[in-house]
């Protein structure tokens, strides 16, 4: 039979190709499953380096002020605008919902509580991610691909200390401030809609707000804001600092930074809430 020999040799070849394909698929799957843990490891290493270099001289005060100005002052407008509309839409929904069972006088209390504990820190962090976090990644990424970070190293300047520490501190300090701003403007927006448009009594709105919302609620939001501030700047800096692949690589890094920051903020929100309330663990 003339075809017998080729068929016999083709079978082991196919089997070895199949084995190689399965091995590649298994490697890819393992890498994919492990990649979040690798990423978390890289983030914690960078955080450790930032703490290590952050406490060592020289202290470059100007860089800290610049970073805080960029993260904080530069975000005031976008935070105020979003807070105004978020407060307004909360008032619209709650007054409409509460009227069904005659509880609309609780609107101020619920809005205050929601803003202080959840909506304020989460929205402020998401807004800062989209405005300042993405810009940080792009700036650091551009510096990396144009050898500016290497230039810092050759001039005996530690790039983590010079570039990352001021940004992390700015996130840690300015996010709580922006959260407070979000809360105040959000309540103002809700007040305008609930009282000005929907006819709620202003005294009742404010009285319920003051009665329900206390310092514990506000501080819970501020703790979250500090955690989010560090997380979002750390992720933005990590993606930019280790960017590669030219302009396209910087674009991909920025995209990853925004997506990872948004996910991290929502996951950390659950984690911090669980810890603060002492419940909700799996």
């Amino acid at each position: 039979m003339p075809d017998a020999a080729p068929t016999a040799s083709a079978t082991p070849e196919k089997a070895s190709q199949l084995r190689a394909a399965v091995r590649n698929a298994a490697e890819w799957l393992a890498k994919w499953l492990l990649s979040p843990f690798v990423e978390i490891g890289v983030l914690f290493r960078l955080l450790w380096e930032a703490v290590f270099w952050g406490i060592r001289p020289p202290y470059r005060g100007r860089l800290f002020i610049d970073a805080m100005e960029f993260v904080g002052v530069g975000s005031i407008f976008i935070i105020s605008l979003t807070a105004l509309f978020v407060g307004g839409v909360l008032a619209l929904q709650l007054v409409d919902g509460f009227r069904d069972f005659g509880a609309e006088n609780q609107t101020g209390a619920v809005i205050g509580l929601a803003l202080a504990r959840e909506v304020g820190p989460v929205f402020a962090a998401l807004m800062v991610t989209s405005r300042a976090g993405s810009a940080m990644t792009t700036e650091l990424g551009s510096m990396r691909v144009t050898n500016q970070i290497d230039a810092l190293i050759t001039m005996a300047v530690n790039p983590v200390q010079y570039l990352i520490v001021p940004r992390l501190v700015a996130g840690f300090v300015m996010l709580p401030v922006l959260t407070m701003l979000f809360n105040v403007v959000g309540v103002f927006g809700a007040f305008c809609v609930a009282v000005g448009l929907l006819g709620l009594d202003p005294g009742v709105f404010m009285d319920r707000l003051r009665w329900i919302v206390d310092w514990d609620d506000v501080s819970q939001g501020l703790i979250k804001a500090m955690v989010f501030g560090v997380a979002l700047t750390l992720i933005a800096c990590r993606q930019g600092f280790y960017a590669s692949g030219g302009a396209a690589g910087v674009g991909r890094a920025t995209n990853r930074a925004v997506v990872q920051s948004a996910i991290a903020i929502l996951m950390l929100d659950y984690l911090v809430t669980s810890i603060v309330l002492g419940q909700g663990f799996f």
Partner: protein
Amino acid sequence: MKVFRRNVIRLTRPPLPPEAKNDPIHVRIRDVHKSYGQQHVLEGVSLDIYRGQTNLVIGPSGSGKTVLMRQLIRLERPDSGQLLVNGVDFAKLEGLELAAMRRTFGMVFQMSALFDSMTVFDNVAFPLREHANLSRKEVRERVMARLSALGVAGAAHKLPAQLSGGMQKRVAVARAMVLESEILIYDEPTTGLDPITTERVDDLITETEEMFGVTSIVISHDMASVVRIADHLSFLYQGQIAATGTLQELLNSEHPAMEEFVRASRVSLD
């Protein structure tokens, strides 16, 4: 409180050992290996860098020139081998010793790597503000002196993006030289430049060497530039030094890759 003074740690370049002053060899690179995973880029590179001369490392693309440069200024650590600078093994240094030793080198990157958020003046002043305990007036005087010497004083208040490629190179040299480094490394200084600017950059390299008495290391594959500026040449091929010597010696080299490189670049001493 002393601890809150800015720049408490000042990195001073290590003093030049007396025996090193008369040593014609400034840097000895010995048996340097570097791999990335399975890819062996440098496979036992050994070469001498001569004091006060223009030393060129040439070779085709992918031969490991930039990787060698990154080891030389310790942007990466070699897997094995020695980088003896004034007799001190730079490859083994860590922490503050490494940072201090880095002040021996000035680096001019391929795309200049100027900080694009700073003016030309601030770029050149940057190393002084970081490492030298000088008043504002002194910083200004030293920066303007360097910029004037290199013919770019008029651009002091411009941003790097507003300068031509040749001017950016001049500013990068000024920044690399402002702390009076002993060794100046140029990574592909003429890549992407037009012939006139290329010639100006070549002149800049030789002028800088004469003006400041530095040792120059130029990583290049531009043979036209090589002929103009080289005192000493090393040909890197497949991760090893395939030929080394003067320009005349290398042009007459019988190494097949070197012969092909010279032939393809169509240069001669005439």
